[in-house]
């Protein structure tokens, strides 16, 4: 359960930045693009885009392919999908825990009711 949350942390770091989400948007719209092309569509410098691409690359969300002198980046859709799923896992983990709490508490409440009844009867 906890490792799922740790996964999310890293993906969150990568996708949590609004500019990086816009970088992903540009890449998804274009299929693939160089840092220069991405920078042309956003109000940030090429150097800033390159940094964001490096963060996304480390998180496994994009991959770069060298074509001659330029590097073209594309989104790894399976990783983006995994990101969405691991975030859903955090919510699912809490659902599992809440159901376990319910089970334990209701068993304890039932035992207490039984005890109260027994006490009344023996009085």
């Amino acid at each position, binding site marked *: 359960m906890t490792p799922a949350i740790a996964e999310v942390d890293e993906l969150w770091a990568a996708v*949590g930045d609004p500019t990086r989400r816009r970088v992903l948007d540009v890449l998804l719209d274009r299929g693939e693009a160089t840092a220069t092309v991405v920078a042309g569509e956003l109000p940030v410098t090429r150097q800033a885009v390159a940094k964001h691409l490096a963060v996304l690359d480390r998180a496994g969300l994009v991959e770069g392919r060298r074509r001659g002198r330029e590097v073209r980046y594309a989104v790894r859709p399976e990783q*983006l999908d995994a990101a*969405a799923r691991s*975030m859903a896992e955090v919510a699912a983990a809490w*659902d599992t825990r809440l159901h376990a709490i*319910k089970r334990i508490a209701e068993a304890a409440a039932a035992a207490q009711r039984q005890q109260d009844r027994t006490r009344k009867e023996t009085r």
Partner: protein
Amino acid sequence: MVPQRIERDILIDAPVEIVWAVVTEPEHISGWFSDTVDLDLRPGGAAALSWDDYGTVHGRVERVEPPHFFSFRWVVHRDPGAPVRDGNATLVEFSLSPEGDATRLTVVESGFRDLSGSEDENRGHADSHRRGWDHELGELQEYAEKRMRAGR
């Protein structure tokens, strides 16, 4: 910005006091959370959640208002054993409210907002100070799902 949070709730057919005990007492916590737990149940108290096959995750108790509210922070980083610091822990809040003879238990997990003081901290990650933590998890999930559909 929309507050970042995951919220879940459940209706439990038990009085608030019993649910409170299950949520806060170590012998019960090991039944629904970590395999073992060491908990100092007071504000600022240390919490250590241990999984046999994972290791120990550290936390810190924030608020304790029996039998209605309990909150703690816990470390979300990959490194089990790391102490709670600014910016490495999410906040978990349990609220208990009576509904007739039953109890509504709500849990909210949120995080990464209380990063004050961490800006100058060098944690060895490029861009760590500009991470934009102030983002809702649900919104992010929605974004990823939307982009997945668009990308297909």
